[in-house]
């Protein structure tokens, strides 16, 4: 037990008879360094903490069960007391609902994950500053066509979370993260193009500045001379970073909560073929290589490996405790929450498509003619996980004769998520662990509508 655990338990101890209570307390330290033009543009260093409290009244799990929530960005005892009062008062106004319960320990052991690296705290600030400055300088020098580096950032965080409840939940987890990222602007005459790159790890020592720099410079410079393309239907090869984003959208449709509320394109399709046979999609937060790796979920249950789509067949959805109860099943250890100010909901943390055998170059060669998309825009405005409608802005390079050729910009690629899953041509073996809820690899999808001139 540490002090954060003790605090969570002590607040839970204030639950009244018959009341359910869950207390989430967190504490963290963040550092952020931004370099620009050889100088430190800004440096932020700060500690923060917060508490989120759910109170259940009216007989938790019974016909009169009601829940209320309150949060505060402080662990001050008086503030916690006021937050508890707020949550308790809020509970009185919820519609009574027998599905409203807190998670109970389910006996699934938590994976032993080492997501904490003392290197974040041990690395002197000067070294963190140097990482950002060096990355900025190196990116400017990497290619004569790089005419600006709009930002080069180093950031890290240390986060500890303790969760306790009147139902016997008691979990503690902690993690560190370190990032390097850079945005390069390449120019050639009046032509301007941009590219970004990053490197992630648990501590500064894991970061590979050249990886961030090379990616940013290559992405910006190879787009120089880009033009619109003719509208056409073609095969699109998506970059691993784009695929990670796309899987994040698919993830929201695999949420059991979206399913039980009739807001998922996958609702009612368990056991059906929703994708081509080569598609196996797994959410596995117990793999410590995943960015979203976690020992415990947002309700303190052990995270576990869930196979969502197996060889094209939809097998299951991810559930938190309440959505599982609504669906007549058990939590899959998939509660996610947006920090202390958020309440649990069902979601994926670490999606991975079962990788294929070949890499980017071989897939491009096999596709022969089509479009390679290195980045997309407008995901939040153009991809709808309810209807499945899919339309995003895209930039990349034409694929001609099995190799990348002319750069293309200001086009859109469109389809529906349903059709895209059934049109997967090949899944790359070039798996990359990326920030977000999904890993990424090269992915080729046939019959996308390319809209340009």
């Amino acid at each position, binding site marked *: 037990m540490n002090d954060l655990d003790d605090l969570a338990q002590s607040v839970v101890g204030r639950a009244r008879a018959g009341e359910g209570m869950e207390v989430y307390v967190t504490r963290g330290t963040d550092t952020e360094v931004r370099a620009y033009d050889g100088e430190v543009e800004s440096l932020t260093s700060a500690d923060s903490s917060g508490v989120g409290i759910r109170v259940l009244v009216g007989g938790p799990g019974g016909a009169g069960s009601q829940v209320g929530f309150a949060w505060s960005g402080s662990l001050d005892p008086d503030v916690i007391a006021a937050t508890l009062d707020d949550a308790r008062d809020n509970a009185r106004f919820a*519609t009574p609902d027998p599905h409203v319960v807190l998670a109970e320990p389910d006996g699934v052991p938590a994976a032993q994950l080492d997501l904490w690296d003392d290197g974040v705290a041990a690395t002197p600030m000067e070294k963190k500053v140097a990482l950002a400055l060096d990355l900025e300088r190196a990116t400017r020098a990497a290619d004569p066509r790089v005419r600006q580096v709009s930002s080069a950032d180093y950031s890290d965080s240390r986060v500890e979370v303790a969760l306790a409840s009147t139902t016997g939940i008691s979990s503690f987890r902690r993690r560190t993260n370190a990032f390097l990222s850079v945005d390069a602007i390449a120019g050639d005459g009046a032509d301007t193009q941009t590219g970004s790159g990053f490197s992630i790890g648990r501590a500064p020592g894991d970061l590979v500045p050249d990886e961030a720099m090379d990616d940013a410079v290559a992405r910006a410079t190879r787009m120089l001379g880009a033009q619109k393309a003719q509208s056409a239907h073609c095969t699109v090869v998506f970059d691993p970073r784009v695929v990670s984003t796309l899987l994040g959208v698919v993830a929201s449709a695999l949420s059991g909560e979206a399913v039980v509320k009739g807001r998922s394109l996958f609702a009612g399709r368990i056991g059906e073929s929703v994708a081509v046979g080569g598609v196996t999609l797994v959410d596995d937060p117990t793999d410590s290589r995943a960015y979203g790796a976690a020992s415990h979920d947002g309700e303190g249950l052990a995270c576990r490996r869930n196979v969502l789509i197996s060889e094209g067949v939809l097998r299951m959805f991810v559930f938190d405790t309440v959505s599982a109860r609504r669906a007549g099943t058990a939590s899959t250890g998939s509660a996610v929450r947006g920090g202390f100010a958020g309440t649990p909901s069902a979601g994926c943390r670490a999606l991975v498509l079962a990788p294929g055998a070949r890499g980017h170059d071989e897939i491009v060669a096999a596709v022969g003619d089509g479009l390679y998309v290195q980045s997309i825009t407008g995901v939040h405005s153009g991809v709808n996980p309810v209807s499945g409608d899919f339309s995003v802005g895209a930039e990349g390079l034409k694929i001609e004769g099995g190799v990348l050729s002319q750069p293309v910009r200001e086009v859109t690629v469109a389809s529906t998520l349903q059709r895209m899953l059934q049109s997967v041509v090949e899944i790359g073996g070039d798996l990359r662990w990326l920030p977000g809820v999904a890993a990424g690899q090269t992915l080729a999808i046939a019959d996308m509508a390319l809209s340009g001139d």
Partner: protein
Amino acid sequence: MPGRCAGRGGVSGHDDYDTAVTDAALIDRDVLERVLSTALEGGGDMAEVFAEDAVSASAMLDDRRVEELSSGRSRGAGIRVVDGETTGFAHTADLSETGLAAAARAAASVARQGGARVRTVALGPLSAHGRGERTPPDSVDKARKLELLTRADEAARAAGDAITQVQVGCGDSRRRVLIANSEGLLAQDDQIRTRFNVACVANGDTGMQTGYESLARTEGFEIFERNRVEDIAQRAAARALVKLSARPAPSGEVPVVLAGGSGGILFHEACGHGLEADHIVKDASVYTGRVGELVASPLVTLVDDGTLLGEWGNFAVDDEGCPPARNVLIENGVLTDYMWDWLRARKEGRKSSGNGRRQSYQHLPMVRMTNTYLLAGTEDPDEIIAQTPSGVYVKKLGGGQVNTATGDFVFGTTEAYLIEGGRITEPLRDANLIGNGPEVLRRIDAVATDFDVTPGTCGKDGQSVPVGCGQATLRITGVTLGGTA
């Protein structure tokens, strides 16, 4: 007591917490002066304390149930020290003088170039700004707020049997800010915001479709005296229902008519972000160095205006203590100015335009839009449609995104129709439109009189702030629509 206000109001103990957002100063003047002096002990050009006390409440009705009421409180201060080109920043939830001084020293630790010297800071008079009568959210009974949710749910479901799911959310916030800097500035604001939104799912033979509508104002609960939640719900439901019979949107370049108040996101993305001085001074905008040039059709006069009372991007002072202004950015197609915060204005030896904003005390301010709108034109909106032989009519836009360096931007439709023979015909499924800012702005050939402003949330560099977007019905002669047909 740590984490507590040392203000004259003597706020202490949770019983008083709800009244913390009253007239008591968040931090006393003499404390501010000492903390600012501490921040500059080791040198530096400017120090600033941004204190914030925010309370928020939200409620969600989903699947016919009020699922959860949520209340939140956040209170703290962000301190920055600017020394040359470098900004040091630290924040704390501890508003005691000890906590503030510790944050000041942390922020100053990067300002180490200058030699130690004593510098006293004297703050000027507090700039206070009048506000209209507002009904503070915490004075409204929770049950009254919930009744609005139920009424909206019923109205949406009554719109059609095909409506299978309704989600209604409402939220309000009160954010009191106090800003003091070593130049003597002392300002405060008390911002009350209220929002209401409805999301519907309609289910038909062709699958599911969604519809969304929202109301959001920098006002209190009184917004519901002038706006019926049933109307908001019906608009969201109608949007989902009409799309059940929608055909796939066309692909390729098409003339587009945007309805008045359809979202205004076009200008926010096509040029708004590109006119933010932080992008300009880094030469990371397609509009850098183009003041005085024709960058848009002569029909385009674009304004960013934080003074528009009650709009979602309205405030009495920005998050650097500067009052908002009505800033003309493009006049009759000619680029006239950019938007500025303190830091970027200083670089150019000018004043901030009142566009320095931040998400919370835990964030550094940067250049942000407020309410950005195109001035209305002279044409009849129906005439514009009638004079469009073929194209797409966009009744409602969703979000968008822009690459400021290239000017390429996208924005999504959430309600759109084909225009055939000058008439609005079939509904279209959702799609993104893509274009290049300067190119699309030149292609605006008609602007109508039916001006309206709509609320939105703008994300930039990881920070979200409320903004307004406005425009009248207008036509773009050609923009690429990302459909499948």
